């Protein structure tokens, strides 16, 4: 088999996935928008190869010095190099043609983009490995269809499931390959259903086998990898703030771990309140006032992400200012529906709102700190309510979702998530929203709770169960993903740029003296792929219309059209499924998102050109036809190899002047003005 030439060739740019590998080795908790499998594998590879997790991975271009990183790089490069044999096997299985398989494989070997991408510690080679693995095993089990329930059939079917779990476990992009396999399975079952020689019992067996191997097995594996993830990462780390208070109590080193606090809120309690939106801060106030021209000139109230003394608030009765902590007073619990006053502990001002517009969200009301030593006005009164609770019930620490309704205006205290300008110390805006909606923005929970008169209970009883943390981490990931919005005026990569190879991604090195690596597909290969997609659509339409019109085909052509429509159709569907959804995504997109689609497109190229050449050969006389076929295939291969020879510095690194400089050796290769190598 062909192995990657790039296997022992390393460059020195590193992204943040290496850092996450280190987190696993150090067992500190972190947050990332992708599921954990890919990073766990990187961490494992690093661990096995003796990397100790101490390299800081601070900025691209730092040298590794004596850290042992070869294991992690080698692991990714190995998975990346597996793509070539996988593509070879898939195309061979689909088209039964050696030259088609070789063509597809050589496209992947000689594509500079694939090489660059698999040289580094990235999730993409791992994702593509599982993705191609899933397609390969799907194709294999399809070809075992004549021997159902035999050992190889079971083997390939369950391997498909395993690979699917791997693909989603690395990145959510893996969902598209799940869709591909799902559609293929539905088609498969539909065919079986139409086969009247099969009894309903056999059909049931088929269905159950697929449900078990393609749904239950991947789900179990997927859940298992999260179990491992949570079990390994048991120390408090940089990701804590993204998760709810209950979640944080699991982590060693977090201040919520193993503490005991009073369970029910009472008047006189000192509390902190955390907003329930993802990465929502603590309700916070400080001595600074809102500046001139921003609502009323009163004390700022914000949401602050870090723990701080200014996050502490005291719950008071709205109509009296007695000190409830006085030992002579009896304990009085706060109940759902009570009207309360929140006094800021440090500044003794009351949480206050009024009909001035909020600083950032103009349609909401401003929230301020008002009054002196707890004496304010009627605008300081808030009704405290718990979501889904009846009136008169007590309010629990951590677990109750609290809503604070402003009594005078009827608006609800919430955090808009917008960052305040300099005057607000870039903390998050807190507003009072007049729109009564159930969003996490407007819900809070009590995190710290100090009341010496109440008995403490251990927080262990509050520890969330595994399904709860699984669900929460997914919610956080999904919100994190959709939160990756491009900034105004930022030039981002657009999906239509990708297939035409419009613009690459700078991997390392900016200046002329640096060793520069630029992620860009081999333009000859990519443009060939692009042309092939058009060619395929044309050929498929012609074939399908001809068949529908009842044109009689010879046996050879029938086989060819079968390969074209079924095998090519599968690859085309794969390409569409991995490409079109990006047009609908609002998040920031990068060039490397196209690579899974590019794999399908390359395999389609192999199949289509092989079919076309065979078709031409079939139309001509025997000897001429054979020559056309051989020379055609050879010409394509040579074209790919030669273009690789031209563009190989892109992935193996360039030194010297930029290509925009006419003196650079790469100047002649800058075919599009948008390339920046």
């Amino acid at each position: 088999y062909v192995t990657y030439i790039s296997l022992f060739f390393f460059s020195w740019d590193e992204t943040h996935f290496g850092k996450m590998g280190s987190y696993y080795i150090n067992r500190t908790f972190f947050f990332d928008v992708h599921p954990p499998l890919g990073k766990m594998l990187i961490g494992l590879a690093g661990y096995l190869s003796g990397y100790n997790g101490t390299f800081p991975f601070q900025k691209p271009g730092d040298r590794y010095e004596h850290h042992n990183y070869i294991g992690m790089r080698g692991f990714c490069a190995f998975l990346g190099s597996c793509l070539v044999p996988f593509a070879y096997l898939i195309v061979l299985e689909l088209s039964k043609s050696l030259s088609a398989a070789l063509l597809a494989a050589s496209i992947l070997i000689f594509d500079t983009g694939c090489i660059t991408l698999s040289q580094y510690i990235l999730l993409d080679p791992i994702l593509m490995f599982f993705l191609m693995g899933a397609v390969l095993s799907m194709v294999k089990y399809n070809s075992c269809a004549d021997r159902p329930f035999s050992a190889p059939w079971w083997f390939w079917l369950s391997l498909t499931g395993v690979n699917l779990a791997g693909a989603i476990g690395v990145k959510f992009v893996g969902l598209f390959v799940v869709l591909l396999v799902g559609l293929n399975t539905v088609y498969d079952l539909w065919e079986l259903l139409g086969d009247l020689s099969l009894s309903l019992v056999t059909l049931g067996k088929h269905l159950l086998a697929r449900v078990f191997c393609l749904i239950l097995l991947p789900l179990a594996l997927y859940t298992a990898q999260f179990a491992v993830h949570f079990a390994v990462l048991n120390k408090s780390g940089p990701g804590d703030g993204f998760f709810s208070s209950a979640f944080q109590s699991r982590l060693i080193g977090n201040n919520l771990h193993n503490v005991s606090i009073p369970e029910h809120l009472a008047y006189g309690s000192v509390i902190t309140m955390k907003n329930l939106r993802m990465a929502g801060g603590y309700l916070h106030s400080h001595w600074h006032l809102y500046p001139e021209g921003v609502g009323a000139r009163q004390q700022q109230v914000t949401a602050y992400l870090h723990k701080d003394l200014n996050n502490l608030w005291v719950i008071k009765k709205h109509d009296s200012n007695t000190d409830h902590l006085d030992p002579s007073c009896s304990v009085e619990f706060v109940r759902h529906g009570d009207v309360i006053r929140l006094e800021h502990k440090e500044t003794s001002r009351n949480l206050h709102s009024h009909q001035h517009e909020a600083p950032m969200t103009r349609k909401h009301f401003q929230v301020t700190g008002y009054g002196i030593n707890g004496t304010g006005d009627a605008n300081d009164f808030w009704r405290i309510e718990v979501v889904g609770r009846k009136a008169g019930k007590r309010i629990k620490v951590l677990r109750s979702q609290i809503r604070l309704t402003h009594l005078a205006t009827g608006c609800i205290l919430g955090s808009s998530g917008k960052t305040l300008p300099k005057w607000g110390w870039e903390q998050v805006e807190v507003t009072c929203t007049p729109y009564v909606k159930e969003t996490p923005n407007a819900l809070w929970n009590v995190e710290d709770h100090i009341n010496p008169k109440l008995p403490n209970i251990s927080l262990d009883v509050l520890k969330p169960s595994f399904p709860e943390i699984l669900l929460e981490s997914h919610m956080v990931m999904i919100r994190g993903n959709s939160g990756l919005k491009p900034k105004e005026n930022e030039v981002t990569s657009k999906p239509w740029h990708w297939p035409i190879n419009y613009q690459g991604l700078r991997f390392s090195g900016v200046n002329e003296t640096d060793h520069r690596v630029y992620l860009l597909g081999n333009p000859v290969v990519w443009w060939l792929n692009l042309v092939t997609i058009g060619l395929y659509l044309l050929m498929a339409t012609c074939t399908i219309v001809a068949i529908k019109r009842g044109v009689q085909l010879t046996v050879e052509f029938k086989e060819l059209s079968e390969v074209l429509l079924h095998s090519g159709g599968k690859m085309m569907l794969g390409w569409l499924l991995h490409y079109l959804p990006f047009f609908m995504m609002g998040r920031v997109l990068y060039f490397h998102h196209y690579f899974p689609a590019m794999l399908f497109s390359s395999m389609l190229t192999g199949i289509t050109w092989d079919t076309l050449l065979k078709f031409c050969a079939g139309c001509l006389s025997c000897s001429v036809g054979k020559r056309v076929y051989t020379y055609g295939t050879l010409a394509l291969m040579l074209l790919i190899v030669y273009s690789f020879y031209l563009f190989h510095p892109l992935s193996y690194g360039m030194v010297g002047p930029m290509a925009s400089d006419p003196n650079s050796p790469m100047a002649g290769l800058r075919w599009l003005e948008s390339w920046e190598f």
Partner: protein
Amino acid sequence: LGNHSSSLTKPFCRMLGFLKQPVVVTAEINMNLVALTVMGLVNRFWALSYPRAVVFDEVYYGQFVSLYMKRIFFVDDSGPPFGHMLLAFGGRYSMNVPIWSLRLLPALSGALCVPLAYQILVELHFSHCAAFGAALLILFENSLITQSRLMLLESVLIFFILLAILSYLKFYNLQKCSPFTAGWWFWLLLTGVACSCAVGVKYMGLFTYMLLLATAGVHFWHLIGDQTLSNVSVFCHLLARGLTLVVVPVAMYLSFFYVHLTLLYRSGPHDQIMTSAFQASLEGGLARITQGQPLEVAYGSQITLRNVLGKPVPCWLHSHKNTYPIRYENGRGSSHQQQVTCYPFKDVNNWWIVKDPGMQQLVVSNPPRPVRHGHIVQLVHGITTRYLNTHDVAAPLSPHSQEISCYIDYNISMPAQNLWRVEIVNRESDTDVWKTILSEVRFVHVNTSAVLKLSGASLPEWGYRQLEIIGEKLSKGYHQSMLWNVEEHRYGKSQEQKEREVELHSPTQADISKNLSFMARFTELQWKILTLKNEDTEHKYSSSPLDWITMDTNIAYWFHPISGAQIHLIGNILTWASANVATLVYVCLFLWYLLRRRRKICDIPEDAWRLWVSAGGLCVGGWAVNYFPFFMMEKTLFLYHYLPALTFQILLIPVVLQHLTDHLCRSQLPKNMFSALIVAWFSSIYLVYRTFSPLTYGEPILSAAELRALRWKDSWDILIRKH
């Protein structure tokens, strides 16, 4: 050969065969239809001009109509102009408060939906009874009534959607017996026209258009498989469909914009969004200033430079006496030279002079020497006579880019770097002349190859909150924030600084006008409509698509502060629930039949199955395409966005009911019981309609207790006055 050519021409002759027959008119009046139309008209027109006040979104449409009357240009990001045009047409022939005539058109289209629903079911080969039922359901649907009695566009949209569906069905039914006859052409053409009207009213119409195209595609696919047709006649069919369903709608859509742009020729409130070239094509506004400016920018020209992007606000390259602070708040240093910003208002400090680096003079020579693509120029700020400059100092807010300043010589070995290369981006050849308004230009710094760019951030207090201008070193392709065009322009005449200041303060004058082609204006306007974003993403009555299906939300359209009369967009809850049940039943039965048929077990006869598939495909398909896309939309959504989908869902109810009676009730007794049930159900629908009609029509006025009784769901927001 002759034989061959006749076989070619024959289908073409047949395509035009309708010309051979005489025109015959036979009258046949379906009293059902007449009755339904009358009922629809009564139901929608009753007390139409009440309330005599602006209700909900009427305020926007009213503004657009009055702008139409005044012929003032505007941009509405919610959709294409055909709907506004129709409304304005209604307001045309009327007195000072044309409230009745403005509401006439939506009410009329709402009323006509009733007979259309009837005919659609008839064309789907369902019984007249079922068709009548469908029409009654539409008739008694409160939400549709409310929406069509006000000056809003949804009912017009629904009318065109139903019309398109009906004409396609008529066409399809004619297809089998008599293709290429006059009637066949008429209905086919009407399909295309109705589709383009629907898209022209609201972009939502696109969903139904796509559905119809897909249906036509499937039907044509069956036609390809029909071996009795010759290749040529199949090709003719394809041609006819392509012409009427693609070419005609596109042409009509363009013509809406053509009429829109021809009618609105005066400048107005939304001018600023458009490019200078577009603004100059409108009467008044910028055109008045730029009218008669010299076209070609020459050395010595006095110009103002506008950023092409126009976001976050349109602005002009600007400089003023103040300098950058020596140290910023975060401790970074600056060059302490004169600030260069982008300023969103017209100002004398926006004037710059184009200077030839090789010469000293700041006036235009005679004859003028035009600046061409690739020329190197200096830009001199008119009032302060300082040169536009950039150097290797970090910009105030974007530290990765270079600072742009007007050079002050502090004698500290920091030489001026003020040469800029002019690159015309939309050039036709490399020797193009830099033209006023039309040319989009990049300024590339000669020493550092940085590009003059608007960063979009606004400067702090010291920069008067004007927008930051930076030199972007690594230009990632083209972005509009790097492009500039000359807006105001005159040839400078005064060599002395004092005279020049006077000259800069005086308005520009000269003598040529520029006109954009229709296609250029259309592309720009279309692009602006699609990309313009409304910032207010929150509204008191906005809702999510999930709330619609169960009608968990309503919209209070209008509330009389004294009497307490109110109008709500609130549906007939029974109809909504039945429609959901019908959809569910349909999908389950369809899957059941489909799986059984695959095993060669046919529960229902072949033609009943075909009917079931085609009716369901249209109704469930229409519901799905008009509903599910909203889950992916990020704009503010309201309950009324669901109405087109609801209409399709309502049409499905009688389809399912008739299928159940015909095929699942085998003997007479259950059949009779089922019919009785249906009658009871219909009367309860009527009852619900009567109960909620005070909220639909705004009268009679209900007491607080009655209003409270109408609050069937806790989530409904019915306004009850506090006493």
